């Protein structure tokens, strides 16, 4: 497969690993902010390829994981409304929430359908004019333009029964929130590849400028990630932090203007509630007033009981990079993919699930 296979080459990977090992003299800590990176780093065994001086932590990059319990409770409550069809990306279904889950609601008769694309959700709305279709809009800047496009398409085709529950979040503000908290000292950030295809490199400039932290945007194949780490190590060793693109085939200096234009047309920026972090200002997307008839928050009202976090779950700590999954007492014992306690074990992009699935023989699954 073009643009995939060449970036998985064994010999080239070893070359990069060697270079990183040669360069790296001080112990440094890097963090990725993208669930796809979390998954790829574990799947390809990147930690085993880089020297011990390079410590890697996962940050808040999994859209399912960072969705607050209260917001998931709302989605579940909406599912129980009459004549509602909930459409969602797959992983959300199994996340345990305060009192239930979408999967449980489905077993109890709620109409909940997994879709691959917002296009499918709009199609379902078109095919079911007597029902209200609500799309659970999670994701970051990669997904937000697709949701914006779907609202515009619904408007254009006069599909009035399509709604979005906007839980979309933005990446640079949460990076800032984590850097401000100082909970984990970071030397470098592995920048999210496909978020950056949309937003370009400029929104990350505050990272080296205000915090002295290096930032290199990475692709998703193992060679891409190793190249990114090499550039981060170089910047940090030289003491010259800046924003660099290590994924130039995907990320352009201007990003994707059209995508941002559509996002800006449909959404405005507001605060968002991040699991494990709390309210982060200016970090969420809300549907603009002009399109409020497509906004599930405006079209429906549900009453909610106070949210409850699962007991003993350290998902919040894992999301902030403050704990590695095996450090959670529940990991691999009480909390497994078959019986997950929190979202980090449910979603393919959650750190716990990735650790569990791709663990090394020495340190996997809590053994």
């Amino acid at each position, binding site marked *: 497969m073009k643009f995939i296979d060449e970036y*998985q080459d*064994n010999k080239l990977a*070893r070359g990069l690993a060697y270079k990183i090992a040669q360069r790296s003299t001080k112990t440094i800590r890097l963090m990725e902010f993208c669930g796809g990176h979390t998954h790829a780093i574990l799947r390809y065994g990147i930690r085993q390829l880089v020297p011990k001086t390079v410590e890697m932590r996962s940050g808040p990059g999994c859209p399912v994981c960072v969705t607050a319990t209260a917001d998931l409770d709302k989605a579940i409550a909406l599912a129980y409304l009459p004549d509602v069809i909930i459409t969602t990306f797959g992983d959300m279904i199994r996340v345990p929430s305060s009192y239930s889950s979408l999967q449980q609601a489905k077993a109890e008769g709620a109409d909940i359908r997994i879709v691959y694309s917002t296009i499918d959700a709009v199609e379902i709305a078109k095919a079911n004019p007597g029902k209200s279709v609500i799309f659970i809009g999670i994701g970051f800047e990669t997904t937000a333009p697709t949701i914006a496009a779907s609202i515009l398409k619904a408007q254009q085709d006069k599909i009035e029964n399509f709604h979005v529950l906007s839980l979309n979040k933005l990446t640079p503000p949460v990076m800032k929130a984590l850097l401000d908290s100082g909970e984990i000292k970071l030397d470098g950030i592995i920048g999210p590849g496909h978020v950056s295809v949309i937003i370009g490199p400029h929104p990350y400039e505050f990272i080296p400028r205000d915090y002295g932290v290096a930032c290199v945007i990475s692709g998703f194949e193992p060679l891409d990630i190793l190249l990114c780490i090499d550039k981060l190590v170089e910047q940090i060793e030289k003491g010259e932090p800046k924003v660099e693109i290590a994924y130039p085939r995907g990320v352009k200096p201007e990003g994707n203007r059209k995508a941002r234009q559509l996002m800006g047309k449909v959404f405005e920026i507001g605060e968002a509630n991040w699991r494990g972090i709390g309210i982060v200002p200016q970090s969420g997307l809300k549907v603009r007033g002009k399109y409020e008839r497509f906004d599930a928050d405006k079209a429906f009202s549900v009453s909610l009981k106070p949210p409850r976090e699962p007991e003993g779950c350290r998902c919040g700590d894992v999301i902030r990079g403050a704990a590695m999954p095996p450090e959670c007492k529940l990991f691999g014992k009480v909390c497994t993919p078959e019986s997950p306690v929190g979202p980090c074990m449910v979603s393919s992009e959650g750190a716990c699930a990735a650790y569990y699935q791709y663990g090394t*023989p020495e340190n996997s*699954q809590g053994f």
Partner: protein
Amino acid sequence: MDDSILLAHGSGGKLSHELVEKKFLPFLANPALNKLDDSAIFEASGRLALTTDSYVVNPIFFPGGDIGKLAVCGTVNDLTMNGARPLYLSLSAIIEEGFLLSELEQIVRSIKKAAEEAEVSIIAGDTKVVNKGQADKLFITTSGVGIISPGVDISGANARAGDKVLLSGTIGDHGIAIMSQREGLRFSMALESDCAPLNKLVSQMMEVSSRIHCLRDPTRGGLATTLNELAWQSKVGITVEEAKIPVKDEVKAACELLGLDPIYVANEGKLVAVVDPADADKILARMRKNSYGRHATIIGEVTNEHPGKVVMKTKLGPSRIVDMLSGELLPRIC
């Protein structure tokens, strides 16, 4: 007869008899079945193997086969994986009211063809009809009887350290053929399910070696789940090399698009064999002479380390645990 199945076809009366006589018997005819007694009588002595299976695959027609072919091959393969020679099958069908008779006939023809290839007879059958909406088109349940020759001991518990792990061919074909129908992927080169009866392949393997320890077909849950089952049953560790596992390019690409890992995708015409290392090469050579084993290869070996766990050396070098599939990868895949 009318165009589609009516409730009356399941009532046991005239229409039921007509259904059996016009839609099943002409294709599956054999002395035992033709008698139409309440049960089929046959003689067999020695160690017998019995298996049962249900088939709820959706869609019922897919590239490379249909629910009928799947039912025969799946049952034949279950018997084969214990070293049994499959002899007789029973087949019961639960049909949704309104199901097209022409499609039913197509499926029965398919069953006939598969049974002929596998050299098995369908000697007992049953049909029931349920109201529209109470079954999704057609469900088939089978049972199968086979006979095991003296001295043959093939079981998931027999793997020993040092054994080689053989795989009969490319993985993921069946699951992707099914998913492609459901997800609107199209293939410029037809990708078909690998659905096939493996009893002849296995009997050829058993002719060249009496040291086949385990056989299993990686159906639901894929290769990864099967390897884990063997590791757990035999209380051994299994190591495999990712680079040695054959996957068709189109299957790889479809997996990328659907977000699947080929090692978890169902297969319906492949087998894993765990064999004594001294016989591995000659078993492999024999497999490659059979059209269902053309791409057979050694993918790994059995070890005393990490018992119960499967470890895969990835393409880039680092090793990782390969767990069993948990949760629902692809519903109604077989």
